[in-house]
């Protein structure tokens, strides 16, 4: 029964996450940016923009300029999360269909991923401390901002508990996810009976479901930020979007 509920919930959440975020990306794609508004100094070539975006996404360059504490905590959390997620791939991939070198890489990262969990939780705790202790950040925080941190910390903590205190039967868990992946509908392998696992999975499902409706949209959003993704060449290349063009021949509405 519990296995069925989780199985259905994972299908639901996965579809919602993919369709929801996919739809947001589609929306961002079709909304035009009528004016050149790159925050300058900005790159004058597309290659330069790719490099700028890479620095933003991989190094949080602007945040580093802004505030070292937020940068340290934010970076710890995001890199920790990334490593933890990569580590988790082992549970969702069938080694038969994964190139050997990739699988080898995944095995290598396992011990690192374990410690990355600490970095992730420490980073989140730092961000939460700022949210509570720094009056400017406290002022701008909504209940959802606190809850989001609570959710992520709870996901991290429940995972760490299974790692270090109360291990679950990881082989059965993998069998469960494999049966989901192969669409063995209603013939799912049973989920191991572990309270922390149930908690962990429920929280992850929650995160997947709220992703397309929350500030987590900053993840796709940054790639669409005109102040960061535009090439600084307005004098060289005329930038004009369809609705603005329609003003010129008087054909369109405003």
């Amino acid at each position, binding site marked *: 029964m519990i296995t069925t509920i989780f199985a259905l919930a994972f299908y639901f959440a996965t579809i919602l996450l993919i369709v929801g975020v996919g739809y947001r990306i589609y929306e961002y794609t079709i909304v*035009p940016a009528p004016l050149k508004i790159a*925050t300058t100094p900005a790159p004058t070539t597309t290659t330069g923009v790719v490099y700028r975006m890479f620095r933003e996404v991989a190094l949080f360059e602007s945040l580093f300029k802004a505030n070292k504490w937020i940068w340290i905590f934010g970076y710890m959390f995001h890199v920790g999360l990334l490593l933890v997620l990569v580590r988790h791939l082992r549970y969702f991939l069938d080694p038969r269909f994964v190139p050997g070198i990739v699988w080898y890489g995944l095995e290598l990262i396992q011990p690192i991923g374990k410690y990355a969990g600490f970095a992730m939780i420490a980073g989140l705790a730092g961000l939460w401390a700022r949210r509570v202790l720094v009056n400017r950040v406290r002022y701008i925080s909504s209940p959802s901002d606190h809850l989001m941190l609570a959710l992520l910390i709870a996901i991290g903590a429940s995972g760490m508990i299974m790692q270090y205190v109360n291990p679950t039967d990881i082989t059965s868990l993998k069998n469960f996810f494999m049966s989901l992946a192969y669409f063995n509908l209603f013939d799912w392998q049973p989920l191991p009976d572990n309270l922390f696992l149930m908690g962990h999975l429920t929280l992850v499902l929650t995160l997947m479901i709220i992703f397309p409706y929350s*500030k987590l949209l900053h993840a796709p959003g940054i790639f*669409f930020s005109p102040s960061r993704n535009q090439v600084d060449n307005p*004098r060289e290349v005329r930038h004009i979007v369809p609705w603005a063009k329609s003003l010129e021949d008087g054909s369109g509405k405003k």
Partner: protein
Amino acid sequence: MSDLDKSELDEALAGAGIELPDPLEMPEMKPGAMGDLHSFEAYPQHETDLGFPGERPDDWKEVVIDKMADLRTRYRSFRVYLDSCVKCGACTDKCHYYLGSGDPKNMPVARQDLMRSVYRRYFTLPGKYFPWLVGARDLTEDVLDEWYNYYHQCSQCRRCSVYCPYGIDTAEISMAAREIMDSIGKGQKYCNEIIAKVHSIGNNLGMPAKAILATMEDFEEELEEDTGIAIKLPVDKKGADILLVTPSADFFAEPHIDGLFGYAKVFHELGVDWTLSTTASEAGNFGMFIGSYENMRKVSLRIREAALELGVKRIVFGECGHAWRVGYAFLNTLAGPWDFLDPRYPVPQHICEFTNDAIENGELKFDKTKNDHMTLTFHDSCNVARATRMGDKPGGQFEIPRAVIKAACNNYHDMEDDTIGEATVCCGGGGGILTDDLMDIRVKGAQPRMRALRKVTEEHGVTNMAAICAICKSQFAKVLPKYDFNMEAIQSVHQLVSNAIIMSDAPKEDDTKSKSKKED
């Protein structure tokens, strides 16, 4: 300045009992401190002149929500920026209006949230069903007033966008907010009256053609008295090579006029055939301040029409910050393509680019000692710094004006790094704030810049600050005295050029000698 000299200096100053506040020092938070600052609202006539309703419609809430829906399909910035903020707090100490006033609604994220809270309520699922959870709120009269007050305490300087990890630019939100308010007839008098003047007369000051012609004649006399040569300020000269589009403040205010004299001397010395236009007699484009693409386009098209009418080959912009943003970044979009102009030059060109090219080519000579009574620093104007470029390389907007200043002056010293370049703090008067009814926030917003200036004054003997923006110059002339500086401390960059440029056809001090030389 290296960190070492800085700390040594700090020590020395502390020893002397002088304590200078950090320009970016964090204020004590004072909620509501600026909540009542309400600039004059536009009269119905100002609104209708710009194509907005003169009276607030009864169903104004629906109109506002419809307008938001419209903007979120027309402006990617509006859409993505409202969705993406994670409230990390990186921007909270970056706005000069927050640093100066301590009002938390002047923190960029909080300013955006005035709009975002309504956006969430009407356009997002959690905001519709759990408004208390995500800080969503209904649109009410109070909310509208808050928008009006705080979106007119943003100079659209983009300092926050430099530091936001997603590049969220509060300027985009404040422009959208002003456009939304205009859509229900709640515009600001200062901006909208000025835009209407540009539409009907051609410049922000409302100077008719005759007045411009008379003023230029006066200026020509003044220049001739000063230099002994007939330096022209041509107006509406057909077939001229260069159309100079400059803020109308250059015809009227100090130190702007001295900057205009500087451009005229550079053109004269280079033997360039140039002209002003009476119809495109304004570089500034307040259409940007109110976020109205249509008004901004209409203002820009005056430049296109003048360029076609006069048959010029190039367009050069005078010293003006937000104007340079519209000129550099938007003009090609709004009023291009410029295929009828000389393709060898960028359209438009900044007067600093123009002068600097001539300096680099060795075509201008300076007697720098003419500026020796001053030690200069340079205020990077916000929109030049963070929304434009000069020259070929990113950052040219910082280097080129400094190169021009240094070509004309011996004594120069930059202010602290975190208050110049891309980190520059706004003058406090940009983006439609330069009106007496907002003097309170203008003075407070200038505080970081004034403190940075105080530091270089005390530590490096700086006497004057140069700028390349009509708004900066007017704002500083007004607020410098409030911080115990002389109002003449603010200089136009081309004023310095004007002081020091050596005019090759000027009569020499020893008249006979120069005459005989010429005859040779």
